[in-house]
């Protein structure tokens, strides 16, 4: 039965993606080459999700083919949606044991539900992000002003240190609080701006979005939380690397430390567990630069990411 073999392979791919993700959380090499590691994370997420959906759907469909085109032909046989198909479906009840048919229906329903919910959480997360950004832009238009110390950035009169960027297609904004301007020197501010502009230029928000969506969908899942945290940290490291181009590491490190330890904002309970160690990891990485992965190793990581997605796609489509 090729269908079962496909289902087994897809299930193995999904499991493998989860195992790979937990290995990647522990691994130390990602901080040497954040870009390659981010690519691998994206591949694991995409392949894992698609393989899980594919495995369930292929279990739910009879016959010896899995390819996307064939299930559509079989769908009528399993899913008696069209009235004229009903006799065929009843015929199958006689041919196949009822329990098997029920099992297949359950698998098919679970697969479709998983696919729908994955799409839904992504759409919901994008919509929430867009809405929050629209509100931020509207408020910034009323409240923010420019400052010669930070050309191109918007400044908000607020005493606590805050620095962030609002990504978007039409407007890309870096926002700093007055507290930040008072806290940091000229060089440090330039480092912060370079860091934030790297986020904006490379659309790191889009990289993080699927992981945020997954974490929102499964708030209790340790795996999702760890994946989100790992990718968020890698994105910060990538932006740190970009900020270092043409500027001394010292500016960025002192900006990070001053900013992070300004301490005017007490952390709410439970926040530390999420953030503990990430700042230190960034600072240590800047103070004691690690060699990037050799080109061959980076290429191997990218190749592995590509193969993983290609293999999943091949099983789904062929």
């Amino acid at each position: 039965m090729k269908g079962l073999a496909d289902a087994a392979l897809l299930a193995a791919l999904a499991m493998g993606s989860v195992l790979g993700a937990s290995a990647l959380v522990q691994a130390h090499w990602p901080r040497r080459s954040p870009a390659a590691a981010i690519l691998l994370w994206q591949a694991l997420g995409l392949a894992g999700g698609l393989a899980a959906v594919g495995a369930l759907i292929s279990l739910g469909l009879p016959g010896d083919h899995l390819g996307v085109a064939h299930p559509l032909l079989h769908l009528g046989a399993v899913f008696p949606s069209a009235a004229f198909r009903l006799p065929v479906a009843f015929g199958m009840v006689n041919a196949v044991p009822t329990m098997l048919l029920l099992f297949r229906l359950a698998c098919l329903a679970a697969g479709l539900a998983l696919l729908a919910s994955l799409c839904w959480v992504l759409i919901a997360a994008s919509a929430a992000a867009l809405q929050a950004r629209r509100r931020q832009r509207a408020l910034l238009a009323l409240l923010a002003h420019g400052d010669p110390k930070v050309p191109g950035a918007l400044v908000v009169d607020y005493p606590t240190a805050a620095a962030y960027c609002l990504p978007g297609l039409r407007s890309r904004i870096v926002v700093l609080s007055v507290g930040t301007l008072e806290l940091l020197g000229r060089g440090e501010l330039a480092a912060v701006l370079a860091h934030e502009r790297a986020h904006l230029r490379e659309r790191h928000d889009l990289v993080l979005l699927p992981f945020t969506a997954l974490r929102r969908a499964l708030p209790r899942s340790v795996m999702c939380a760890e994946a989100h945290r790992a990718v968020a940290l890698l994105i910060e490291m990538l932006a740190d690397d970009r900020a270092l181009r043409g500027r001394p590491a010292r500016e960025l490190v002192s900006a990070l430390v001053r900013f992070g330890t300004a301490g005017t904002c007490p952390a709410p309970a439970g926040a530390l567990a999420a953030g503990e160690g990430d700042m230190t990891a960034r600072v240590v990485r800047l103070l004691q630069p690690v060699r990037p992965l050799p080109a061959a190793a980076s290429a191997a990581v990218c190749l592995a990411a590509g193969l993983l997605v290609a293999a999943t796609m091949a099983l789904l489509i062929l």
Partner: protein
Amino acid sequence: MDVLWETDAPLTVREVSARLTERNLAHTTVMTVLDRLAKKGFAKRQRDGRAWRYCPAATRETYVTELMLTALDQTGDRTAALTRFAQSVSGVEADVLRGALEVLEGDGGRDEGSG
């Protein structure tokens, strides 16, 4: 909007224009802006004869707080709407980091001294 925040009483378009002397804006421009502010919910308006009187829907501080609460959200990026420069840390980690900064600045001083 700043004009509305600075005044206690609700203002008509003409009064707002009069307070924006340095900008030299056309009456219709001010009217359009105030109309937009009202539609977006930032300003409230009430009829006064043939004119509208506008006042802020909330104080400036309220909006700054709303803006910055999103920016300082320490529980993680719930919406992925924006990317922060750094989260704040506290306790032992903050002490370790401050120590690292002091060492770094000490090095910097020596570098400059010798160079």
